[in-house]
């Protein structure tokens, strides 16, 4: 018997079963036997000419069935066959192009990813808040891995002093908008990716509208007002937030999932202005954001793929000088004003005021 994975949309034919077993030496035989057992199956998969509908992808043991062999593809009795409809509204073509097969080959051959996982990545929409130290490696790795839609929020321009750590930008980009420089770098890395630019400061007025367009948010912001703004917006919109921060030689990362705590549970309030110097004032080791931003990219990919143990309810601490990683626990605070049992913050507030900053201070994406 061959194990057949039935997609959600066809489970009405199999009494809700996600997996059924039928005989068949070839794909053609298998589908005939499926039809006998579950009438309507054939019609759901094949068009009038007897070929697969364009919106159906067929995998045998996680490998996509090629068009050339098609229905004659032989099937072993321990094989697993999966019919996967293309994701509605998903990015990119319905089948992998030969270039995509080659580009993502070493990722697709991972059983935990496979063609199905690669499709999830291509259909995913991730927002990077900031195209700076953390945003650079995070966006570069996500683009390279084939995350189909990458939004970039930033309104800053590239400065020579950014280049020791911000890999998205080069010498030729000095003076350009970071979003535009980022788009060029990411497109060069992977033309599959749809890079969406938000060349504005993230504010209480636009955050819900911008973040609402994405599945996951990667935080690479460099100031407290934006951190609390992004946190609150993600809680209100129930979006996963892949958080990262750094200072001098130390970095930290964690993942906030809806209902499992948020940045305010970890740090209820920002330090008073001046109490915590910024990287601009205190300095930051150039390769440090490479470590933290790459961790954020890995966690984002795990969330999209639904694999592994996410970095949830754990704050990962990195000490570059000791070359040491440690973890401390994060709990959801039932008293949290935004994600607690009785939230008092139910819409976005004035984050510049919340952080005690003068009105004219800019919010950086």
């Amino acid at each position, binding site marked *: 018997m061959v194990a057949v994975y039935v997609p959600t949309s066809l489970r009405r034919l199999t009494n809700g079963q996600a997996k059924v077993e039928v005989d068949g030496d070839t794909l053609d035989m298998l589908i005939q036997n499926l039809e006998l057992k579950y009438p309507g199956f054939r019609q759901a998969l094949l068009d009038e000419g007897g070929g697969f509908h364009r919106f159906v992808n067929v995998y045998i043991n996680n490998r996509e069935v090629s068009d050339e062999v098609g229905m004659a593809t032989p099937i072993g009795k321990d094989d697993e066959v999966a019919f996967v409809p293309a994701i509605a509204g998903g990015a990119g073509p319905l089948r992998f192009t030969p270039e995509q097969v080659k580009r993502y080959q070493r990722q697709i051959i991972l059983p935990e990813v496979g063609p199905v996982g690669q499709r999830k990545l291509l259909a995913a929409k991730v927002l990077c808040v*900031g195209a*700076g*130290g*953390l*945003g650079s490696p995070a966006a570069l790795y996500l683009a390279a891995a084939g995350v189909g839609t990458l939004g970039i929020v930033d309104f*800053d321009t590239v400065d020579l002093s*950014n280049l020791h750590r*911000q890999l998205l930008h080069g010498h030729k980009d000095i003076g350009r908008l970071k979003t535009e420089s980022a788009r060029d770098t990411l497109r060069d890395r992977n033309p599959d990716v749809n890079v969406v630019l938000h060349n504005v400061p993230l504010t209480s007025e636009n955050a819900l509208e911008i973040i609402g367009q994405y599945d996951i948010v990667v*935080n*690479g*912001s*460099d*100031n*407290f007002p934006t*951190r609390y703004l992004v946190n609150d917006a993600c809680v209100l919109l129930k979006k996963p937030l892949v958080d*990262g*921060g*750094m*200072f*001098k*030689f*130390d970095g*930290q990362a964690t993942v906030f999932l809806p209902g499992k705590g948020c940045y305010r549970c*970890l*740090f*209820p*309030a*920002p*330090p008073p202005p001046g*109490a*915590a*110097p*910024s*990287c*601009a004032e*205190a300095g*930051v080791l150039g390769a440090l*954001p490479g470590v933290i931003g790459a961790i954020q990219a890995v966690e984002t990919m795990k969330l999209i793929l639904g694999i592994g143990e996410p970095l949830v309810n754990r*704050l990962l*601490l990195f*000490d570059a*000088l*000791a070359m040491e990683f*440690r*973890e*401390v*626990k*994060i*709990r959801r605070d039932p008293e949290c004003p935004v994600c607690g049992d009785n939230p008092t913050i139910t819409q976005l507030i004035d984050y510049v005021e919340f952080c005690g900053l003068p009105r004219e201070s800019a919010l*950086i994406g």
Partner: protein
Amino acid sequence: MPVQVRVPPLLREAVGGARVIEGHGDTVDAVLWDIERRHPGFRQRLLDEEGALRRFVNVYVNDEDIRYLNKLATPVRDGDTVSILPSVAGGG
């Protein structure tokens, strides 16, 4: 064997630049007083006028946040690690 106290970059100048310093005492509060004796001014970097932990500074005994234990009265034993962790905004 005393308690190891991990000092964040932001507070290292208050303890002569050390990343890790030893502290003695049965509770977090006692350990902080012990450090205060050697490095006057250290406590006020962590605590407000009422003696409560500032809201942008977390203290962990091993991997547990003392806000969810017994706050400053959380007991410590020889060999424990006390970590001080202020929030950091850097990312750019």
